[in-house]
């Protein structure tokens, strides 16, 4: 078992159906001890969206847990030099994609269901983020606030190709069209990155229900103001989204890095550091 990160990370989770939608198609999972945070925003008729997003968070968390029991997440791959968590995350999301795709194929009420996904694994003073669709990861580090994921959406593609400006994008009616999703095709294209982590960092995973209703500046301010207390920050973000109209389900995971968490911190792991 890898060492628990519960002393190094403080995690708060909030999800809310918003003020307009009848049910909540978002699903969230977070475990500070295992350094894991997952957020999914489901889509599909009737209750299929809920099914897809909760399948994604539940399956992915249990699969990662099982995988990290046999191989520690920070263990470097001899060939790529990347920590195990990196390839594992991509592989397990592919497996979750297959599971949701099959469920959608086999049951008529689930046809066409899918979900966006953003998942973060913290290990060895780093984070690995993988995402599919338009759920985001933001980072607040010593006053600067930025998105660490780029949406897989029609809008982002339009912005990238210069068809429309960021300002025009705000008013676009095509906000909700994602170009990638988990569970809609037999294969899924997962984007993943590795970043170094510093004590004091604040990370935010969120669904589009947050950033469609609350602009980045306001999210930044809220995280900064409530930074000492991730739970309050999470609640305040949801409140602001609902104060601004709450047009969609809104979910957030706020992760605060309290101290460093090098993989060799447990003394019986020290020898490993020689071989890196």
């Amino acid at each position, binding site marked *: 078992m890898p060492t628990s990160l519960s002393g190094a990370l403080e995690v708060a989770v909030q999800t809310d159906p918003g003020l307009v939608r009848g049910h909540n198609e978002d699903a969230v999972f977070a475990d500070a001890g295992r350094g894991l945070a997952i957020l999914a925003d489901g889509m599909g008729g009737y209750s299929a969206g809920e099914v897809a997003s909760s399948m994604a968070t539940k399956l992915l968390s249990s699969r990662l847990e099982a995988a990290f029991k046999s191989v520690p997440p920070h263990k470097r791959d001899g060939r790529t030099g990347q920590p195990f968590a990196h390839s594992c995350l991509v592989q397990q999301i592919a497996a979750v994609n297959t599971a949701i795709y099959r469920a959608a194929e086999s049951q008529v009420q689930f046809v066409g269901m899918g979900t966006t996904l953003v998942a973060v694994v913290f290990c060895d003073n780093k984070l690995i983020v993988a995402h599919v669709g338009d759920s985001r990861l933001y980072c607040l580090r010593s006053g600067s606030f930025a998105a660490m994921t780029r949406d897989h959406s029609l809008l982002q593609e339009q912005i990238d190709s210069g068809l429309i400006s960021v300002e025009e994008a705000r008013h676009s009616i095509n906000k*909700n069209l994602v170009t990638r999703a988990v569970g809609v095709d037999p294969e899924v294209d997962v984007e993943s990155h590795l970043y170094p982590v510093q004590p004091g960092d604040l990370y935010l995973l969120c669904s589009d229900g947050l950033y469609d209703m609350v602009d980045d500046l306001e999210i930044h301010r809220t995280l900064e103001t409530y930074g000492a207390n991730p739970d309050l920050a999470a609640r305040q973000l949801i409140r602001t989204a609902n104060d601004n109209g709450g047009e969609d389900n809104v979910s957030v995971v706020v992760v605060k890095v309290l101290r460093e968490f090098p993989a060799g911190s447990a003394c019986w792991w020290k020898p490993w550091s020689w071989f890196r």
Partner: protein
Amino acid sequence: MAKLVLSMDGLVLKEIPLRKERMSIGRKAHNDIQIDNMAISGEHAAVVTILNDSFLEDLNSTNGTMVNGQPIKKHFLKDGDVIELGKYKMKYLLAPPSQEKADYDGRMPVDTIPVPEVSKASDPVGSAPRFELPSSPVPPAAIQLLSGSNTGRELQLTKTLTTLGKPGVQVAVIARRPHGYFLTHVEGATFPLLNGKAIDAQARRLEDHDVIEIAGVKMEFFLKV
């Protein structure tokens, strides 16, 4: 969101919003729009909606599908088109774009769909600004320091969030929300006092002339009206 108005013999039976990317029409129960009539095929037709555009397709039905009196196989629906299946009529109505935000769950994967929206991108769509707050949601307010070295100083609560106290010691936040100002404890072992009593972890709504004490400094909250 666009909708279909189902009628028979001039009598309106139902309004059906086109909520899904694909809405099937037919006699059998699994259809999104079920019309239980022998003149209608089990799977009669389907309406596929991409962005703001809807297409009607006849699924090789026995009695066919007509639009504005003409039989069709595939048809690009225009506002006001009348679809006929047997004795039933369905009028296709395009909602004005400003109204479709609230219940439009148009999120869907688009990678396999031809994308016709390039020209639309330059249209001034979505003219309703989403980020603007209502013109005067809450009356302006301020706090005045009643003790400490800055006694008498006023702090305007113009931002949505105003931080009070000393970081690392005791911090509280006043949040300006559409229905008032709320005080929340954020950091520190001691909680702020509101009119002499410690508040708990819950946000507390501030009333005119409430006295707050944070990190040993007293201040009065007041509305500027």
